[in-house]
C-alpha cells in the first residue's frame, strides 16, 4: 500500500496556493456541484455515506454533527475552522493552510451551504503567522471569484469567511475555549451541554471542525461519499494525514488510507528508525495519546478502532518515534511541563493536578524521587480526569499513566539510583564491559 493523496494531491506543486492553480486541478468543482446540482439534504447524505470523522482528535462523525443544525432556524449561525493545531507532535494543518488553503475554504463553503450558516471564522494559532497570511490571501481570492460573499454562484446563498489570530494558548484548541477566545475573553472551556450546535459562538448555533476535516469535504462532494468511504475501512472512512517525527528516517506528513498497516507505513513509507537503531516506543496520535511498545504495534492498523484496541488513540495522527537511546523519564517530564504550562487554571483538579504531576516527575527526573511517588501519581489520577470541565485532565493523565506503567523500571531506576547516580552506574557498567572485552 502506498500513499493515497486526496487532500495532499498536488500540495507540493509550486504555486498551488493560488486559486488558479487550485482550480486547474479541479478545485471548486465540488462547490459548483454542491450548489448547482444538489440539495442540502443530498449533501448531508453524501457526508454521512463518506464516513468522514472529525480529524481534530476525537473522531466524531461529521455527518451526525452536521445534522444537529436546523438549517431554517432564523438568526445568525456560525461555522468555525479550528486551526489552533497545538497538540505536540502535530503539524498537518499548517501544511494544508500554507500550501493548499483553498481546499479548506471550499470545504467550509459547502458545509455552510449544507447547514445554512452565514458566517465563518478560521481560528489560527498566533504562532502561525505565515499560514494566517496565506489564508487571508486565499480568502481574498475566493471573494474576488464570487465563491464568498453575497449570492454565491447565483444561488442567493450568502456566506462570509474571516480569519482570526489566537495568541498562544493550547487550551483554545478545545472548541468551547476557542469560542470564548473568539468572543474576546480568556480561553476557558465551557461546560457541555449545551453543545455548540445549540449554544455556540455568541450563544448561536455553531459547527466546529478541524482544518483537515474541512479539507476532506470538497473531494467527497466531487467524487461521492461512497468513493471516499471505500478509500478507508467500513468504520473509518477515507484517508487521514499522518505526521511522523522524532527518531525516524523520513519525517513528514503523509496521507494514508485509514486501515493501512502500521508496519507498512513505518517501515516502507517513513523508512523505519533513524540510523538503523532499534525502536523503543511510539506515541501514535499526539502527546495526549498513550505511548505504545513495539510488541503492541504487531498487527496494528492505522484506523480509529485498531489503535484503540491496542490501548491508545488515533488522535491527530501525530506519530512520535523513540529509538532505543531515548530516556523515557525525560520524555514524560518534558511532556508534563507542557501540560503544567497549558492548563488554563479554571478547574482546581486540573490546575493543581498538573502542578503536582510536574513536581513529582521533576523530582524523580532530578534524582530526588521517593519510593511511593509512582503510586501517588496513580492515586492522584483518579481525582483529576472525571472532575474537570474539558478533556484536558484526561489528556495528560492518560498518557502519563501509560509512561509510568510501561516504563516502570526506568522510573524506578531514577528513584532508586538517582539521576546522576544512574548515569554513574551506567558508566561503571560500560567501563567494566569494556574491560571484560579487552
Amino acid at each position, binding site marked *: 500500500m502506498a500513499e493515497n493523496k486526496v487532500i495532499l494531491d498536488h500540495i507540493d506543486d509550486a504555486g498551488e496556493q493560488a486559486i488558479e492553480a487550485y482550480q486547474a486541478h479541479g478545485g471548486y468543482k465540488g462547490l459548483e456541484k454542491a450548489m448547482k446540482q444538489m440539495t442540502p439534504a443530498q449533501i448531508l447524505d453524501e457526508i454521512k455515506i463518506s464516513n468522514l470523522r472529525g480529524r481534530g482528535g476525537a473522531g466524531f462523525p461529521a455527518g451526525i454533527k452536521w445534522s444537529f443544525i436546523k438549517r431554517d432556524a432564523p438568526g445568525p449561525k456560525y461555522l468555525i475552522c479550528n486551526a489552533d493545531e497545538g497538540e505536540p*507532535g*502535530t*503539524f498537518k494543518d499548517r501544511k494544508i493552510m500554507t500550501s493548499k488553503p483553498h481546499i479548506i475554504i471550499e470545504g467550509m463553503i459547502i458545509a455552510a451551504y449544507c447547514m445554512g450558516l452565514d458566517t465563518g471564522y478560521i481560528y489560527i494559532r498566533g504562532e*502561525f503567522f505565515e499560514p494566517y497570511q496565506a489564508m487571508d490571501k486565499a480568502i481574498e481570492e475566493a471573494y474576488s471569484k464570487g465563491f464568498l460573499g453575497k449570492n454565491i454562484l447565483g444561488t442567493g446563498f450568502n456566506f462570509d469567511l474571516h480569519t*482570526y489570530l489566537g*495568541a498562544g494558548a493550547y487550551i483554545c484548541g478545545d472548541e468551547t475555549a476557542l469560542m470564548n477566545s473568539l468572543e474576546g*475573553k480568556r480561553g476557558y472551556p465551557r461546560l457541555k451541554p449545551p453543545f455548540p450546535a445549540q449554544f455556540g459562538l455568541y450563544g448561536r448555533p455553531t459547527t466546529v471542525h478541524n482544518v483537515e476535516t474541512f479539507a476532506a469535504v470538497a473531494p467527497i462532494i466531487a467524487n461521492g461519499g461512497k468513493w471516499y468511504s471505500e478509500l478507508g475501512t467500513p468504520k473509518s472512512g477515507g484517508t487521514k494525514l499522518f505526521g511522523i*517525527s522524532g527518531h525516524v528516517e523520513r519525517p513528514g506528513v503523509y496521507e494514508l488510507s485509514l486501515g493501512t498497516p502500521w508496519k507498512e507505513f513505518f517501515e516502507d513509507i517513513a523508512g523505519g528508525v533513524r540510523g538503523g537503531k532499534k525502536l523503543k516506543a511510539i506515541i501514535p496520535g499526539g502527546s495526549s495519546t498513550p505511548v505504545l511498545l513495539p510488541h503492541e504495534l504487531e498487527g496494528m492498523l492505522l484506523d480509529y478502532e485498531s489503535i484503540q484496541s491496542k490501548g491508545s488513540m488515533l488522535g491527530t495522527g501525530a506519530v512520535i518515534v523513540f529509538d532505543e537511546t531515548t530516556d523515557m523519564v525525560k*520524555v514524560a517530564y518534558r511532556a508534563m511541563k507542557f501540560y503544567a504550562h497549558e492548563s488554563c487554571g479554571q478547574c482546581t483538579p486540573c490546575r493543581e493536578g498538573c502542578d503536582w504531576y510536574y513536581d513529582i516527575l521533576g523530582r524523580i527526573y532530578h534524582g530526588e524521587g521517593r519510593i511511593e511517588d509512582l503510586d501517588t501519581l496513580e492515586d492522584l489520577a483518579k481525582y483529576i480526569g472525571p472532575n474537570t470541565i474539558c478533556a484536558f485532565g484526561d489528556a495528560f493523565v492518560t498518557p502519563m499513566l501509560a509512561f509510568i506503567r510501561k516504563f516502570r523500571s526506568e522510573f524506578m531506576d531514577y528513584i532508586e539510583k538517582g539521576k546522576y547516580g544512574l548515569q554513574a552506574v551506567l558508566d561503571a557498567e560500560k567501563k567494566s564491559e569494556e574491560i571484560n572485552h579487552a
Partner: protein
Amino acid sequence: MAFSFNESSMNEFHKWGKKFPENPEGRRSLVIPALWISQWQNGYISKDVVNYVAEITGTEPLHVWGVTTFYTMFKREKTGKFFLQFCTNITCTLMGADQIFVNTCKKLGIKPGETTSDGKFTAVEVECLGACGSSPTLQVNDKYYTHMTESEVEKLIAEFRGAK
C-alpha cells in the same frame, strides 16, 4: 505617555472591525486583535495599551488585562529586536533542541528569558510550534526556521547582528 494607534494600526483595526457583528459582543471580539495590533506597534502591552484597548473595544481595562495575561504571546515587557523562540517540546528535544537552547543562551551571555544588553536578542523556550517534521524548530519574531543545529543558530544570530 498615553498610547494610541497610529494611522496604519487604525486602518488594520478597522479591517478587523468588519469581521464581527456590529454590537457590543462583536466589539468585545476585537480585544485580542486590538492587543495584537498594539503589540505590533508598541512592542509590548503596557498599562496604557490596556486602557486604550478597553476604550476602543467598549470593555473594561480589567477585562483586557485578564485577556492579556491569559495568552502567552502577549508580552508584558519589551524584548529584544530578535525574539528567539526555541521549541523544546517532545520531538524538538529528541532532536537536540534543549541543548541548542541552553548553549545558545550561554553564548549570548543571558539566562533563559533574558535580553542581551545591546537589546538585540531575547531567547525563550516555547511549546510545540506545529512543525515537528522539520525539527528542531526556532521561531524568530514571526518567522519559522527549521532543522536547527547549534551552528545554524549561530549563523542566524551572526546574520541578525549584522542586520540594521
